[in-house]
Structure formats: structure tokens, C-alpha cells
């Protein structure tokens, strides 16, 4: 079975909110000191989903990441976890895209790979939180898509997927090849074992440029966007919390309850 996983590198989304700053004039996020790039968490779960499929069905897992200057130790993590190959779409023309141009580039790269049964994405990238690229790839490739999966099995050319709902889940089947986006309910991604890390260190990523996937630069990155970023800003937070103190925790607790009554909250 051939499995493709799309993985994006983003600034650690769990960094303390206070470290987050933007340059309003340039409409850009200022990279915070000490905040490193990580694999977007849902994408790491997509890698895990791919490896679980490979564990059961055998086959090959190919990872694609689009981005410039991606730190190799981070982008190689899926290899260390057990993926077989890494392709990086690395060229200035790919930069500054939105979900539209990103999905297009990834779909064209997947076409170039040619043989695939399952394409996996994260449910949404942890930076822009759009949640569009997976469905976009499916649409460009003309294949079925199932979003927000928590469990994936493959039987006789059919994917059987549990899709998370707000009040439970639903079971959906799709004829392969299919695209599936993965949610955190899938479960923890595996750790990279030392053996995997050593093997990954030796593997070299394959680098593709626009010409390699047969696309004109005008349809890529910033030039190919369907949406325009008009403004990026940080909403102001008031932040005046009344801290209730007491001689001991129990007293503080009682005073809190009384204060809530006084403020007519309860």
C-alpha cells in the first residue's frame, strides 16, 4: 500500500501566548526567540495514522512538506518515526501561499508521485487554522475525502473511517484512493526510536522545484492565492483579574464564593 502524508512545519503552537508578537506594518508574525519550528501537531498524528496503516497492511509511507529552509532535524522526524521517504517542495515560488495555492502544489506533487492509495493530512494546520488543504487536494485529484478522522482501517480497497462529530462519531467508507484528514482523537504519535533517528540521519530528502511537478510559478505560493491577507492584528485583552486571597486555601475558596455572590455571578 502506498501512503502519502502532507506535513507542515509551524512555530510551536503551544508556546506561551505572551511570546506571540506580530509586525503589524508588514502583516507578519515575528519569530519569537526560543520558539522553535515543530511539525504541526495534527500532521504528526497523520504520520502516526500512516504508520499504523503500514504496520497492518505493509507498504510505503512518503512524506511531503512544502516550505523554504525547513530545518532538516525537524522535517526528518517522520522518517525517524518510520516513514520511508521525504519530499520537500522547496523554492521561493512556493512561498507565501494560502490554502488554495498550497493544496494545488501538494496535489501536483502527489500526481507526480503517481501511485498512491491513501493521502493523509492534518485536520488543520496549527498556525493559520484553516482546515482547507486536505479537502482541496482531494478536489484537485478528484478523489473522495473524509475529514477529521479518529480511526482508519483499510479492507479490500476501501477505507473505513471513524469521523469525529460534536456529539460522537460516524463511520464513513470511501473507495481508494482517498484523502483523509486526521484529528487528535486518533491518539498519541509514536516516539522516534534511536534506530529510526540514526536511519533518518542517513536519508536525504528529495527536493522538488515547480518545474519538477510541472507547474507554472504563477499558480503557486503568493501569486496563486485565492485569498488576500488584508490585515493581521492582535486583539487587546483587558486582563484585570481580581485575585482572592485568604489565610489558607479553604478561606480563599470561601471568599471567592462570597465574592461571586456579591458580584451577582451566582
Amino acid at each position, binding site marked *: 500500500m502506498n501512503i502519502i502524508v502532507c506535513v507542515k512545519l509551524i512555530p510551536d*503552537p503551544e508556546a506561551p*501566548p505572551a511570546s*506571540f508578537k506580530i509586525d503589524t506594518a508588514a502583516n507578519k*508574525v515575528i519569530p519569537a526567540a526560543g520558539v522553535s519550528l515543530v511539525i504541526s501537531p495534527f500532521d504528526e498524528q497523520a504520520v502516526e495514522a500512516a504508520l499504523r496503516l503500514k504496520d497492518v497492511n505493509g507498504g510505503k509511507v512518503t512524506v511531503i512538506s512544502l516550505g523554504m529552509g525547513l530545518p532538516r532535524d525537524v522535517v526528518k522526524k517522520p522518517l525517524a518515526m518510520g516513514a520511508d521517504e521525504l519530499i520537500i517542495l522547496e523554492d521561493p515560488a512556493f512561498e507565501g501561499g494560502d*490554502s*488554495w495555492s498550497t493544496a494545488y502544489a501538494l496535489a501536483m506533487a502527489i500526481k507526480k508521485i503517481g501511485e498512491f492509495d491513501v493521502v493523509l493530512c492534518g*485536520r488543520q494546520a496549527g498556525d*493559520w*487554522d*484553516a*482546515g*482547507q488543504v486536505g*479537502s*482541496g487536494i*482531494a*478536489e*484537485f485529484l478528484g478523489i*473522495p475525502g473524509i475529514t*477529521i478522522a479518529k480511526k482508519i482501517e483499510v479492507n479490500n480497497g476501501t477505507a*473505513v473511517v471513524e*469521523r*469525529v*462529530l*460534536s456529539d*460522537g*462519531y*460516524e*463511520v*464513513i*467508507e*470511501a*473507495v481508494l484512493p*482517498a484523502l483523509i484528514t486526521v*484529528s*487528535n482523537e486518533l491518539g498519541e504519535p509514536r516516539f522516534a526510536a534511536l534506530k529510526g533517528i540514526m536511519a533518518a540521519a542517513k536519508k536525504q530528502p528529495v527536493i522538488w522545484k515547480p518545474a519538477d511537478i510541472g507547474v507554472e510559478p504563477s499558480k503557486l505560493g503568493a501569486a496563486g492565492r*485565492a*485569498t488576500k491577507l488584508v490585515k*493581521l492584528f*492582535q*486583539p487587546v*485583552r483587558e486582563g484585570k*483579574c*481580581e*485575585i*482572592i*486571597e485568604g489565610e*489558607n*486555601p*479553604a*478561606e*480563599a*475558596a*470561601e471568599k*471567592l*464564593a462570597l465574592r*461571586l*455572590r456579591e*458580584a451577582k*455571578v*451566582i
Partner: protein
Amino acid sequence: MSEAKGILIVGETIEEKIAPITAELLGCGRKLADELGEPLFGALIGSDVSGIAQELIALGADTVYTADNPILQNYQTDTYTQVMEKMCKDISPRYVLMGQTTIGRDLSPRLAFRLNTGLSTDCVDLKIDPQGKGLLQTRPVYGGNAQAIFAVENKYPQIATIRSKAFSPLAPDTTRQGNVIPVAIEIDTSKVKTKFVRKVKEEVTGVKLEDAKAVVTGGRGIGGPDGFKQLEELAAILGGAVGATRPPCDNAWVPSTWQVGLTGKIVTPELYIAVGVSGASQHLAGCSSAKNIVAINKDPDANIFKEARFGVVGDYKQVLPAFTQKIKSLLDK
């Protein structure tokens, strides 16, 4: 496509009734439609949905298009996208608005890519650009650490999904007049490559999290399923519901349907008590519109204290029992 005109909102139902998000879509859509001086259309897709079309009109729609067919009973990407593609081609709306729901999250990107147009998901504000009448779409990004305004240039329809509870519905007016137009359904079954098998619903006992006036939320700091029993006790006294941050759900201390936040539920209760919650932006995305946030956390520097109105710094194991007792005695009086 002829010249784009009007706004089309995609309605949803929950157990044969109009979903709250549909009323919010109509409230938001009506305002924009009046500003444009153009009509507000509603779409209802499903089986046996025509009966509630009139309710959409009472809530602000001028015309409701119904795609009513047993084949549409359950949401399926391939069938619903075909229906929406046809409706968009027939109606040629300027904007299409959906809810950021399990359906909207799936349907909106598929439709946008099929129609070769732009989409912004999870919007909390929508405005009309006075020049060119494009839709200015404001949405939280970076987990809620920032907001971005997006525009789509020269592509129609411009599509957006709206965050639950970000827009207000109108009061229903049953005297409002409007048209209900059934749409002929021709699903190309050769293009339906997914099959709905079954739905597994998690039963909710007591008040629903989304509707609760009081929510008691536990975070990783609760330490395990036992601690959540104490939160349930407090929630029961307040007549509210229990929520959770992601780690307790991921660790299976509580069901994943209890998750509040960007990828969980959006709640707007009068009182939100966050216990052992650090206040990550992705969590606050789901609760920052609560009227009063109360935080109990042992770390005085926890980010949750930046959002909370009242707080106690301390170990919840020592704070919560006395707090619950006192609340109980105050409410018993």
C-alpha cells in the same frame, strides 16, 4: 455565471429542528443583505426538511431553497457538494455563508475548491468592503493569538464559515413573507465515492455543554478521572455542565465530546470556572466569550489569570472542596 447577487446561507438541523447556528447565520446574513440591498437566500438540504423552511423566513430569509430527498438524509461530502454546486450555479450568490460545524468544516472547502473561489473558515466578523463589495472576513489565527482579515478578489461566490455564537440571531417574526422553492435533485451517483455507514452518539446526561449557563472545566492539572468527579459535583450544584481542555480528553479521563476550544465546543455561559487550566490560546478560543471566567490554578503566572475576572492561586485539591461547600450553602439559602 451571471452577475453574483445576494447572500446564500446554508441551514442545518439538529433532530428535525433548526440548529442554533442557522439562526445565527440568518442574523448575520440579514444585516449584510440589507446593507447590500440584496436578497438573503437560505438553503435547506436533507430529508423531510421542507417543513421548517418557513422558520428560516421568520428568522430573516427572503427565499428558501429546499433540497429535500431521502438520499440526503445523512450528510455526505459527495452528495452535499453536488447539491451546493448546483444551487450556487443556479442562484449565483455573491456570498455563501455556512457554520463552522462538522458539516461546514467539511463542505465549505470542498465547495470552494470545486467552484474555484476563496474561503475563510471560522469567521468571527464579516463586513462589506465599501469598494467593490467584497466580503472582509475576520478570523482568529495562530490558535487565537492573532486575528486576520481576509478578502477574496474577483471570485464568486465568496465563501465563509462562521464560528458558533459569534453572531446574534434575530427574534423570529412569523409575519415575515418569503418564498420556498424546491430544488430538483439529480445526484450523479457515479461521483459518490463515500458511503455513510452509521452514527454513534454519545449520550449526554443533564445539561448540554453548549447550552449550559454555568460550565466547570478541568484541565491537565486535575490529574485524572477522579478529580473530575469533584467538578461534576460542583457543576450539578450550579445546574451546569462539565467541560475539559484537550489533555483530559486525549488521556481518556473524560469523553472527547467534553472538549472546549478551537477544535472542541464553543461555550458562552454566564459563569465559566476553569480549574487546573493554563489558558492556552486554543482553549480560550472556546470560552473567552463567557461572561465571567473564574480560575483556580496553582501557578500565579498562568495565562488563564489574564482572561479571568476572579481567581484563586492554589492547589485545587485544597481550594475546591471548600468552594463547592460554600457555593452549595449560598445557593441553598
